[in-house]
């Protein structure tokens, strides 16, 4: 590489580093911009790091859906409906940034609910738990002789419910619940009633038979009513719960993790402190052992940290404790590459090579080792990422990102810095370099 090309590349690396740093820490620049009040210069985007539940506090809930009554084909739809209902509920509770997702594990279907920063987790769980499971059933075709007909599930569930209202039967003043389906639900209801004229359709809530009226004619408006033996209060509660969403499938809480917000904050502070100490320790070590070369390794480390943080912020990577752990570990591995190179350079210099030659040989001969060591770690990280557990995923992701960027910073940035000194008087002072 020619001297001038080297200078240009170095300038690019420096600009990249500064740009990343500014994006990661936009505060001071934006304050200056606001102070100067120049209209045409846009402010830098203020964006926060995305923190995992373990760092900001919150709740991670896993529900198992009972899909035994649903055909294999319809499961995906039902799960999607389930997800929507729960999401609506959680949003109603005022949790921002809640993530509700479905997950398949072998034969079972799961619903994962992540509630960041919820102060009152119990209430949130209770809220989800109170979601009624509404289901319409029809008479079983092979069971017509017995006086107590048994019922089988139909497609019509709480998934298609648009709204529920409370009303009173005119003659007896008994409370009843009026249901209104959405268009899709109305179509299913019509089909269902057509098929079951002079038969009974049963309405189940939370697997309990509420009422089983006989169908007189096909109902097309998408409206149904439940007349049970409710007290007024029971009917009111039911309406409220149905309006907040009725489940298409019954669910059961099978695992949960709650982290208090203070605990999350403490974890964040501690892990960041660990990261700082780690970084400072490494810089000191590099300066003491490799002097001037070490100094440039540290400069590259800044480039490395700036790019990594910038990626974390803008991809964005959800930072968890494990993720920060992986990031910190990758700092240790990032300088590994530089150590390999410097040790090799030392050897070449001992053999009598000049500065430039030893620089070239050091970088080129250390490369296979650097490549292999990062490759093995990446390989394991990829396997770990497929594992699924969030701790492992966070760790594997930040570690792999860190390793990839470290290859760039150690192989490319450090070399650019050191190349500047080729042909200067400083290059001959061996003690300075290694």
């Amino acid at each position, binding site marked *: 590489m020619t001297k001038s090309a080297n200078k240009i590349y170095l300038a690019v690396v420096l600009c990249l580093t500064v740009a990343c740093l500014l994006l990661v820490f936009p505060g001071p620049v934006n304050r200056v911009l606001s102070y100067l009040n120049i209209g045409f210069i846009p402010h830098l985007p203020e964006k926060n790091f995305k923190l995992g539940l373990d760092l900001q506090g919150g709740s991670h809930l896993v529900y198992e859906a009972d899909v035994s009554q649903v055909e294999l084909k319809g499961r995906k739809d039902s799960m999607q409906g389930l997800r929507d209902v729960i999401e609506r509920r959680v949003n109603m509770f005022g949790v921002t940034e809640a993530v509700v997702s479905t997950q398949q594990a072998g034969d079972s279907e799961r619903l994962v609910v992540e509630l960041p920063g919820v102060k009152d987790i119990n209430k949130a769980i209770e809220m989800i738990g109170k979601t009624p499971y509404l289901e319409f059933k029809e008479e079983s075709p092979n069971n017509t002789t017995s006086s107590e007909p048994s019922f089988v599930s139909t497609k019509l569930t709480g998934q298609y419910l648009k709204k529920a209202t409370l009303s009173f039967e005119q003659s007896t003043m008994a409370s009843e619940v009026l249901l209104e389906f959405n268009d899709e639900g109305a179509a299913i209801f019509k089909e269902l009633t057509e098929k079951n004229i002079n038969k009974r359709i049963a309405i189940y809530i939370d697997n309990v038979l509420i009422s089983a009226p006989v169908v007189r004619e096909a109902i097309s408006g998408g409206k149904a009513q439940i007349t049970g033996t409710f007290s007024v209060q029971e009917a009111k509660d039911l309406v409220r719960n149905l309006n907040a969403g009725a489940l298409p499938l019954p669910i059961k809480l099978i695992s*949960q993790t709650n982290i208090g917000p203070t605990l999350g904050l403490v974890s964040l502070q501690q892990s960041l402190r660990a990261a700082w*100490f*780690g970084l400072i*320790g490494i810089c000191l070590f590099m300066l003491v*052992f490799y002097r001037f070369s070490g100094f440039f390794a540290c400069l590259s480390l800044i480039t490395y940290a700036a790019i990594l943080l910038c990626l974390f912020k803008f991809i964005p990577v959800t930072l968890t404790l*494990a993720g920060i*752990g992986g990031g*910190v570990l990758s700092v240790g591995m990032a300088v590994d590459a530089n150590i390999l190179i410097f040790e090799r350079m030392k050897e070449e210099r001992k053999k009598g090579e000049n500065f430039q030659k030893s620089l070239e040989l050091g970088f080129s001969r250390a490369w296979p*080792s650097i490549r292999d060591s990062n490759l093995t770690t990446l390989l394991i990280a990829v396997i*770990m990422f497929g594992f699924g557990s969030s701790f492992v995923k966070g760790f594997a992701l930040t570690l792999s990102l860190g390793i990839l960027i470290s290859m760039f910073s150690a192989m490319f940035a450090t070399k650019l810095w050191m190349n500047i000194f080729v042909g200067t008087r400083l290059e001959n002072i061996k003690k300075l370099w290694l």
Partner: protein
Amino acid sequence: MISFTKYRKIFYAFSLVLIIAAIASMVIFGLRLGIEFTGGSVLEVKYKQQAPVLENIKKQTDALNLGEVAVQVAGEQRVILKMKPISEAGKENILQKLEALGEIEKGSESFQVIGPVIGKELKNKTKIVVFLSLLSILVYIAISFRKISRPVKSWVYGFTGIVALCHDIIIPLGVFAWLGRYLGAEITIPIITALLTVFGYSINDSVVVFDRIRENLFKSKGESFDTIVDASLNQTLGRSVNTSFTVILVLLAILLFGGNTLRYFALALLLGVGFGTYSSIFVASLLVVTIFESREKRGLKRPRRG
């Protein structure tokens, strides 16, 4: 130049003693699996002042009839309770009982329930991941060493690399069995993650030394095999020690300042990386020499046909 090959029996003995101790520790104390594998619940709270004494907490929780409750006091203020899966209401009951003993800091609690189904699933998943990792490492070794076959067959390098790997995994596991007995440390997902990372690290550490042996073999002018190995070890020593040292530095930072959750994770990595470095220098490469020499001897007695 340090002659590693000359003293290799001492290094073997040292490693052997550690491995036997680690296995004994695992047999005697057993590995405590975390609740993510066994199913159960963990409630952790932090008191504003000094945590109450263990007996008092036990008395309170016993009154609730929750089955067996393991109570641990961690540090000055933290109390950890482990028991079978409990409901949200059950948790509230316990919290009330704990509040009665002293003021609890709000927002600093953590609560986790893992159903037995999930536990079983995670166990199976872990087995698969460990298996896949081992497999990929084997493939990696096979590819890296397909070219060297003189004077030692390439499988010998692979074999000793795996021996070193086992060494680096068994010793931390032994330490964790012992810690499990006395400090309640458990084999959790973070520990598994740490040990998987050690897989990659350890094998790679050995491979770097092997690489140098290979390079020196190509350049050699008839030196004996053990001289070449010794020279290679001396050349890579600085590199091995220094690269591990930087990683150990950051791990120490996590261990000391990173808080409770990451503590055992950092410890597992620290042990793995530390012994990984040791084994790459003192076990893997030296074993290659030992195997080479024993085959030489046999070869002398029974000249190869052909």
